[in-house]
């Protein structure tokens, strides 16, 4: 599955770069992120409880960043598995100054969604993934605006506190199932979800 999109941040490129490369920010802003643990340089383990209200599953996986060209681009590779399925994604992210003075972020994700979810969720994967990415970017935006950017010196096994995330609210309506898959360190997020419903409605 291929998903691409853009988001325009109010903040300048350097600031966005720092935010999306800061695991602390990520842990706070990734939808459903419960923990983000640094495994090594630009490599993290994460635990995400993604989903909606009652419908939620816990996924564990890893995220790694590569090909970093500060402040313009990087690639993130993520893998996660949970009961309903597996997700593996490569996401290419590019940052460029926007004409407005902010930052234009472009992402281009190639995700493999396996297990039950891959076989039955096709109808809405793209739409929901795009929506979750947007949600993540908005959270990063808010985090930057709130001045929440805190310098942290990451070290191995550092565990970053999960953020306000989405514990009580239901990000995707009440009948879907969401797997939010993310990236730390520098990242972006591929939200992969599946809301699936049968002939019914």
């Amino acid at each position: 599955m291929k998903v691409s999109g853009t988001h325009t941040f109010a903040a300048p490129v350097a600031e966005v770069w720092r935010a999306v490369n800061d695991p602390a920010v990520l842990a706070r802003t990734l939808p459903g992120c419960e923990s983000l643990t640094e495994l090594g340089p630009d490599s993290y383990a994460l635990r995400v409880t993604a989903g909606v209200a009652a419908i939620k599953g816990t996924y564990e996986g890893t995220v790694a960043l590569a090909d970093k060209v500060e402040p313009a681009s990087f690639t993130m590779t993520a893998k996660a598995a949970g009961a309903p399925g597996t997700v593996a994604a490569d996401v290419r992210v590019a940052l460029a100054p926007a004409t407005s003075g902010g930052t234009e972020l472009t992402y281009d994700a190639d995700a493999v969604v396996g297990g039950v979810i891959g076989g039955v969720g096709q109808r809405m994967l793209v739409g929901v993934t795009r929506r979750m990415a947007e949600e993540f970017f908005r959270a990063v935006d808010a985090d930057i605006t709130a001045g929440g950017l805190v310098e942290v010196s990451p070290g191995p096994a550092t565990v970053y506190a999960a953020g306000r995330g989405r514990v009580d609210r239901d990000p995707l309506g009440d009948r879907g199932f969401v797997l939010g898959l993310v990236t730390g360190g520098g990242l972006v997020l591929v939200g992969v979800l599946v809301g699936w419903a049968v002939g019914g409605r």
Partner: protein
Amino acid sequence: MTTRQFGQPIKRKEDPRLVTGGGRFLDDLGHTAYAAAFVRSPHAHARILDIDVTGALDVPGLIGIWTHEDLPGKVGEPLPLLIPHPSLTAPVTGYCLAPDEVNHVGEAVVMVVAVDRYAAEDACGLVRVDYDVLPPVVGLENARAATDLVHDSAPGNVAAHLVQEVGDVDIAMAAAPNRLTLDLQIERSMCSPMEGKGVYAVWDADDEHLRLWSSTQTTTGVRAAVAAKLDLPLAKVDCIAPDVGGGFGVKIVHPWPEEVLVPWTARLLGHDVKWTEDRREHFVSSAHERGQLQQVEVGFDDDGHVLALDVRLWHDNGAYTPYGIIVPIITSTQLLGPYKPGSYRCEFWSLYTNTVLVTPYRGAGRPQGVYAMERTMDAIAAELGLDRAEVRSRNFILPEEMPYDHGLLFQDGRPLKYDSGDFPASLAKLKALVGWDEFAAYKEQAASEGRRVGLGIGCYVEGTGVGPYEGGHIVIETSGRVNVATGLTTQGQGHQTVFAQIVADELGVPIENVFVTTGDTRRMGYAVGTFASRAAVMSGNAIALAARQVKAKALRIAAEALEVSPEDLEIVGGMVRVKGAPGTSMALGTVAVMSNPLRYAFDEAARAATQFAGGNDPDKPPVAAGEEPGLEGKDFYSPTQATFANGMHAAIVETDPVTAEIRILRYCVVHDCGPMINPMIVEGQVHGGVAQGVGGALYERMVYDESGQLLNASFMDFLMPYASEVPFIETDHLETPSPLNPLGIKGAGEAGCIPVSAVIASAIEDAEGFPIRSMPISPTELWELRQRHTEPVAAQGEPS
């Protein structure tokens, strides 16, 4: 008087039970059995690094969990290669549970048994498997490129490579005045019976006996395979097919991993175990078919006679080859249909991919072959500006040329030699049925109304009734009840009825007295299975032969009692009587009594056979030398070669000029399977086949992404047609008898679906005016094709 049952559209004997909820399908058995479920691979190609079952161990109701390393002896060895072939140089079969590598999404990795399926699935969800994902090979292009390999043991991903040639194609091609090349593609689909697979095992520890029920197309095959895997004497294994909710090919493959593991765990646990495949499992862990790339080069003269036909096929056999290369062999031979090209060469490569395995699906390779041939016929007609039916007709094998030997080796390892058929007569019937000659005027009229219609045609020949053999066993009880058994299985073809029709005629008994059992190894231990439209031909003839034996014996015994010669006797309405003197007669049941000299009288009828009942000749033994007690007969039918049925279909389609939606306005079938035992049932087989063909032509495909995930693994996205998508089907029949068997019959099970993709492609091509080279076709694809062929008419509805 008993009227002849053969040829009558009589109501099915099995229906009263099935329409009132009295069917006994696999999951209707064993309510107290433990349930099995499986952890299956989410990856198309991966190495298994670790399996951690500890999380599942506390699940209430859990009975046991097994991985490959728990499987002893032969249970842990690879599954059998069922049909070896010299050209299958790199055969690979799977395991009951994957040992260290998985090769398609859905491959079983861990088995769980619990008190019910709910608990079993609870446990499955808590098993953790770590994989190292390997590069998957998906699609024929990638398989051919062989940048990555599915199996290291299959270089180039090639499982098999086979060439057959008749005549010198290179010379004929070079000499041909006209030449065309076609690149064709046909997508995967699947059988998708409404009932998935399933197996239920009962182990009798005291008797060390296994009784196994499987939703299978071959009980003798399953029995033998399971006995071998579990190291049991054949005598200690029974296998029974209960009512089977459709097969269409997928249930002929055996043993499925579950057919081995379920009885193995039943024995291990000393408790009944059952596995009922769910729909998702059926999508990702049974079998698919159809996917091929084809390249056809054809040389022909100015009249459209095919002088040289050179075909290359790339066949996607999925991850494993338990069923050998039957499907591409059939494609490469049955491609020829009713035609006789001057020379023919077919070369195919059967290639591995990291997808569900590919085994026969109704039609078994023929739909692809017919598609290739018929697209070629249409292309020749277009090239020469000739009528499409005329071009076909000019290439037909004529009735006076029968039997016609193509000089090729068929799927049964015997010559591809047509026994009978009258193709010109079939074509004439089809043209009349569809109104072939009037269509041009209709098309013009439609065009003037802004409508776009097209007429398509497709012809096929189908090898049916392949060997090696089937058997029939008949025993007549003293009540006059006639018990018939044959070993092959039934999945809705009405065998209880058609075999009873044959026996009723042969024995002269009322059909109500005839009771047929199929697919039960306790009743008939020798059998092959139900596939390749073979049941009526093989078991029908075997049963007829068995009935003739029983009849001869009955007449012999009655003749003695009535003091006449057996030649003077006939059996009518269950009574053996003297020809021309119907008053002198005895019931067949009475003959049954006499056939079995008794010591003990258990009922009134039996009294007559006891030792003091009189009529005994003290100088002869009660059972004469060479005789057996009982009115019983058994015989086998084993033909030298297959019979060849044939048919021709035509369809009229309408395509929406803007939205490219495709509607079948008419669908016409002319079908020749020789004399029909029960025309109502034959008609039903044709209808069902056509509906599956329509599914394959317009709706169904297996959508894999490049990582090997099957994206449409539910009935929501795998679009099997509802009634609303299947056209009204008009049929006509020709009955050209086969000279090969006593009943003169040929098979009819698969026919309906064979030419449908070819016919629909032909019709759409006719409507649109550009070639259709890939099937199935959806509105979105047709719309895109139009863009490529730049269509001014459709432009108004297109994005600006």
